[in-house]
């Protein structure tokens, strides 16, 4: 049931309240009046004549003929959309990886880990090579090739 303002609230404002207060009150009264206007979308306001009219309008609307190969084209567009979403997925993966690599902390940690791994492996290999060289030198001195 819509609320109808009788205007009593407006009249209830005391004249001694001053001009500014009076203006505010009048704005409130106007807003209240607007909100009290009947809403055409309200179900309660549906007029049976309007329902008839809208039914007539619906019936009078002419359905256009579908273009040739409409259904096939719809399926093609669905397939294209699925394919493009797949390629977008791979691009997103690459973008995410690139963004991850650009994180300063992760980048520094990766570089440090790789450098450490390189140093450890290099030291291990260097030790092996140095030992082999030293062994070959000793062997060349005590056991010349014709004896081996």
């Amino acid at each position, binding site marked *: 049931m819509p609320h109808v303002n009788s205007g009593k609230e407006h009249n209830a404002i005391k004249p001694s309240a001053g001009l500014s207060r009076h203006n505010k009150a009048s704005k409130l009264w106007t807003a209240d009046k607007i909100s009290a206007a009947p809403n055409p979308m309200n179900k309660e306001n549906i007029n049976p004549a309007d329902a008839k009219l809208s039914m007539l309008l619906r019936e009078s609307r002419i359905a256009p003929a579908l273009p040739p190969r409409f259904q096939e084209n719809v399926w093609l567009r669905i397939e294209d959309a699925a394919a493009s979403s797949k390629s977008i997925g791979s*691009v997103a993966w*690459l*973008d995410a*990886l*690139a963004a991850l*690599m*650009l994180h300063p902390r992760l*980048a520094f940690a*990766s*570089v440090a880990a*790789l*450098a*450490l*791994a*390189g*140093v*450890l*492996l*290099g*030291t291990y*290999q*260097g*030790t092996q*090579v*140095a*030992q082999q*060289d*030293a*062994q070959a*030198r*000793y*062997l060349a*001195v*005590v*056991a*010349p090739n*014709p*004896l*081996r």
Partner: protein
Amino acid sequence: MNRSLIIVLGALALGVAVFAGSYFVSQRACVMGMTNPADDLSWLHDEFHLNAAEMARIRQLHEGYMPQCAKMCALLAAKKSEAQAALADGTNVTANAQKKLTELGELRAQCQAQMLRHFIAVSQAMPPEQGRRYLAEMQRLTLGFHEEIEKSMSPASGHEHHQH
């Protein structure tokens, strides 16, 4: 997409460069730091964890062995030249060539026996466990080659002498 691809490829290239650079630099530094070209016995010290007294004894043995080894090597080289000259004379193995080959073999065996005696003396100057390991390693390195040849010539390995 192109930007992301460039970033990923650049990061991978940087990672490879960092790893390879640190690997080669540390390997080179390690080889240069550990190698002592002036001392031929540094391998014994490092490999068999010998103390100063053991190293001094081994150095003494080594210095005593070196002139004998040089003398034997000179004799071997001379005998090898004689054998080659005898073989170069004709297409047949002459009696002289056969004699030279036998002498070369005997000299080589004497030289190997002398070398093994030196290895045994060195191994006895080491702690027992290290000595055993040294002797096994030296026999493997010096005589292992012949063993491989002999093994490859055995019938079990498929080497057969067909009778015609």
